[in-house]
């Protein structure tokens, strides 16, 4: 009896009954698009904002990056999913719908499609109205319609995916509230699993890999429809590669199809008698309960353990987690408080399983921290030392389809591991063995942080072992001791290491537009390829600096500190800088144009010579004559436990020429000292302001090791420390 016309009749009848949800969706989208856009365009009507900026704002509001629309989509997917299939939870409604001569298959598809059609139509209609609003404001809708359409399509396919999960949760349950709880479980269970595993991994394993973001985060988009939506919101931004976008869209479509078919199959299997029960399928009860109880127990034990770091509290947390979760779920399943201890044997098994997992992490039962691949099994290693490269910018300047410049950030480890293949594994493994031995000496389960130990520096380094069988193993090690031990110096001076750590060494003259030098608060463009006239100098500078940087030795860095920094702007950076100058904005694109500064050491003769040719007064950088005064801000000597009382001047001022010369011969400019990983990080440092008076008074913030100060100054500082 069911025909096409009946199908559409049913669609129409179902639509009539969901007028309130249509009205709600319409209102939300109406205020989001036509009203929201009219409000933002009213500023333009006052002539305050330029056309390009307005277009860019409109695109970001209409496109897939609109977080507000994402929230609306998430909420609607829940509301529509619940309203589409809540009839399954009422015996009265089930009898009504399943008693009429309409096949359940048709009933399913009618309800399913209506739950998609309503928001799609409402969204689409409001987009059309919004286009009208845009046109009325004197902007051609053709400028933004592509973005609006792609935003609409992307949001709708993600809506379908999220909606399908809600539908599944409604079909799996027999009560609306339990259905909503079920939806939360389906959307967030694996997200919580990842969170807890990440916590255990990073908290309990000394050698857990801590670079490149969280290890388990890469599984985040596989956790749930919600997580995939959130990740896609980030990854499907305009400007990302078309292929990557297509793959992500395809995955969403495939997941949606699978979820839809699954919901249809479950619907067909679902008995009408399930209405009013907590769970529609008896078999799903333990399948859902057991993982939740195990995770809750593990979560409970970790929560209490992390508060007090005691096994007793861990056990207490485990018991709390297992009892609370199991009992609450059983009560929900049976709608009966007295059934809270049903299936108590399964509860016990869950507690044991959670305890095993906890102990597996806590006591490193599987020897994760001790593991070092055998030398013969290693093909190559890649080492990332945050202390060496923390100041390096990884990634590149990009321009999105809206014409905006942005810095496409790349994780330092990701860049380094992709560019480094050290075949000489001996120095690396020597460091690793020492680090593992150090770990074994310490109580397992403690917490590491960069701390100074008896004047020695402690540092982290991450390693990717590429084994001969093709497997990659990641670890982060912690080691304290001499910062310039021979193995580290050997690694640092390896050309392969330097090439992978400093992206500048791979930068080509073809991609280099300008050269800028910065010292203190002064920044000068020394070579600017305006019309090709200075290109030759730009190229020479780049090659000269690359040569100097490659030849930089640990020994040099132990003796010298950077005196200035140099930046080789890529063509894209130069475009952003030009644009910034055009719109006379001090902040716009500063994130793009301020990246890529490298240190200039006094021994970089090639670079310094060329800078001289560019009329940069490099001689002045090493000149001490102009420093007339040194001021130590005594606040830096305050003990945090002390309350500072005003005892006169805030500064300890040094005017003695000899002392000034002694200090300035060793001191480093404050902003550059951290660029030198071998500049005595382990020692206590003090900062001061060097006052020069050539061509007017100016101050430069410098830093120096406390023990390198003249005796008289050290004594003064000691007195200040005692006073405060």
């Amino acid at each position, binding site marked *: 009896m*069911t025909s096409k016309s009946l199908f559409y009749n049913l669609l129409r009848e179902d639509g009539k009954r969901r007028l309130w949800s249509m009205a709600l969706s319409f209102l939300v989208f109406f205020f989001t698009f036509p009203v929201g856009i009219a409000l933002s365009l009213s500023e333009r009507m006052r002539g305050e904002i330029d056309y390009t900026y307005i277009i860019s704002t409109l695109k970001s509001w209409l496109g897939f990056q609109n977080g507000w629309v994402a929230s609306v989509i998430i909420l609607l997917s829940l509301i529509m999913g619940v309203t589409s299939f809540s009839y399954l939870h009422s015996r009265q*409604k089930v*009898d009504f719908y399943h008693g009429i*001569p309409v096949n359940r298959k048709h009933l399913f598809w009618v309800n399913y499609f209506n739950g998609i059609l309503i928001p799609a139509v409402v969204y689409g209609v409001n987009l059309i109205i919004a286009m009208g609003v845009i046109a009325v404001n004197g902007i051609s809708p053709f400028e933004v319609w592509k973005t609006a359409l792609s935003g609409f399509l992307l949001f709708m396919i993600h809506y379908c995916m999220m909606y399908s999960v809600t539908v599944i949760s409604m079909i799996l349950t027999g009560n609306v509230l339990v259905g909503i709880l079920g939806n939360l479980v389906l959307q967030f269970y694996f997200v919580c699993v990842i969170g807890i595993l990440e916590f255990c991994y990073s908290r309990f394993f000394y050698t857990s890999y801590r670079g490149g973001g969280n290890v388990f985060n890469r599984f985040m988009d596989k956790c749930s429809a919600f997580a995939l939506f959130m990740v896609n919101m980030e990854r499907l931004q305009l400007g990302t590669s078309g292929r990557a976008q297509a793959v992500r869209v395809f995955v969403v479509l495939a997941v949606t199809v699978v979820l839809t078919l699954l919901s249809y199959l479950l619907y067909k299997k679902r008995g009408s008698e399930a209405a009013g029960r907590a769970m529609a399928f008896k078999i799903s009860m333990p399948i859902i309960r057991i993982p939740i109880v195990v995770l809750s127990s593990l979560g409970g034990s970790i929560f209490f353990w992390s508060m007090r770091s005691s096994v007793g509290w861990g056990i207490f947390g485990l018991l709390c987690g297992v009892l609370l979760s199991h009992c609450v779920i059983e009560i929900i399943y049976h709608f009966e408080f007295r059934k809270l201890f049903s299936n108590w044997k399964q509860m016990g098994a869950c507690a044991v399983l959670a305890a095993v997992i906890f102990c597996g992490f806590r006591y490193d039962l599987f020897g994760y921290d001790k593991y070092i691949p055998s030398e013969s099994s290693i093909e190559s290693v890649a080492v990332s030392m945050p202390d060496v490269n923390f100041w390096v910018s990884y990634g590149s300047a990009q321009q999105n389809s809206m014409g905006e410049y942005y810095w496409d950030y790349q994780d330092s480890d990701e860049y380094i591991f992709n560019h480094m293949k050290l075949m000489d594994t001996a120095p690396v493994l020597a460091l690793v063995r020492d680090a593992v031995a150090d770990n074994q000496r310490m109580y397992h389960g403690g917490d590491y942080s960069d701390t100074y130990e008896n004047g020695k520096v402690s540092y982290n380094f991450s390693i990717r072992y590429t084994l001969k069988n093709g497997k990659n193993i990641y670890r982060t090690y912690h080691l304290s001791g001499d910062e310039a031990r021979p193995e580290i110096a050997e690694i640092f001076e390896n050309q392969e290491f330097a090439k992978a750590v400093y992206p500048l060494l791979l930068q080509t003259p073809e991609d280099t537009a300008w050269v800028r030098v910065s010292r203190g608060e002064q920044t000068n463009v020394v070579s600017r390829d305006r019309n090709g006239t200075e290109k030759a100098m730009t190229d020479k500078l780049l090659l000269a600096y690359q040569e100097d940087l490659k030849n930089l030795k640990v020994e040099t860095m132990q003796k010298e500190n950077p005196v200035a920094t140099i930046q080789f702007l890529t063509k894209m950076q130069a475009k952003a800088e030009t644009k910034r100058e055009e719109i006379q904005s001090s902040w716009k694109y500063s994130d793009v144009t301020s990246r890529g500064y490298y240190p200039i050491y006094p021994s970089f003769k090639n670079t310094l010579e060329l800078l001289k040719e560019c009329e940069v007064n490099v001689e002045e950088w090493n000149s001490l004559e102009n420093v007339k005064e040194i001021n130590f801000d005594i606040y830096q000597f305050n003990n945090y436990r002390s309350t500072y009382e005003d005892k006169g001047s805030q500064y300890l001022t040094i005017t003695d020429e000899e002392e000034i010369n002694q200090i300035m011969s060793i001191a480093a400019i404050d902003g550059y000292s951290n660029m030198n990983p071998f500049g005595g990080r382990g020692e206590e440092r003090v900062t001061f302001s060097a006052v020069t008076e050539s061509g007017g008074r100016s101050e430069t913030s410098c830093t120096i090791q406390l023990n390198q100060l003249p005796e008289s100054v050290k004594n003064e500082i000691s007195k200040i420390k005692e006073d405060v």
Partner: protein
Amino acid sequence: MIKAENLTKKFDDIVAVDHVSAQIRDGSVFGLIGTNGAGKSTFLRMLSGILKPDEGTVTIDGEQIFENEKVKDRFFYISDDQYYFNNSSPLDMMEFYSRIYPQFNKERFHKLLGSFGLEARRKVHTFSKGMKKQLSVICGVCANTDYLFCDETFDGLDPVMRQAVKSIFANDMSERNLTPIIASHNLRELEDICDHVGLLHRGGILLSRDLDDMKLNIHKVQCVLKDGMTAEDLTAMQRIKTETRGKLYTITVRGTREEVEGLMESYHPVFYEIIPLSLEEIFISETEVAGYDIKKLIL
């Protein structure tokens, strides 16, 4: 003809319907009697294709009902708590049903609404329980299906409306051979309408008989016997139950009216008359024979 064979339905550990078999002839009224929880609604829901039997089959003219739109087109199920769309009026329900049941008679719907005094545009949720029941019957009758499944439909109707509904059923039976299947826990309600009665108890069918057969084969005799005779002396009669009040005996016996009259004449009583049995009395007698106390089973 509706045929249920060996129908069984379990809800977890509870057997709601236990191997029930029944045949429902077209053009007759089938009464399904049983206490609360006897399995009447479950049986009807399986008949309506709402529930899938765990065991057994239910067919209409040999065709399975479950998920068979063609067969489901032939009946209308009135639940004990009929669902109406939120904020809907009788007109809205008429519109919906007219799209689902191609033979739906809108004209009659309006006519019956008027007869029952129901306002077509009033919201159903403002109706009383009885009015909702009336509306469900009107929808069911106007759907013009061959079968009408009524679950406790008369419960909540006042005697006048009950009679009105019964007369509508009778009219449709004679005009278009409608077959109502009525589930109720109240025997008296079905007495004057049912042709066949099935008694469900604890998920099983206790008996299933034509009412006429039962009425023709069981009689109640009130008599005063000759001096010196007692009911025990009526040995030729198949007595089911005897009550004595002084010299007046009230005896329930098996047999046709003619047989009973012939036998009574042969005993030359002082006085006797054959009085009709109510459905309840017939059931009491039948089920007592089967070893059940009917008063405990039904009201």
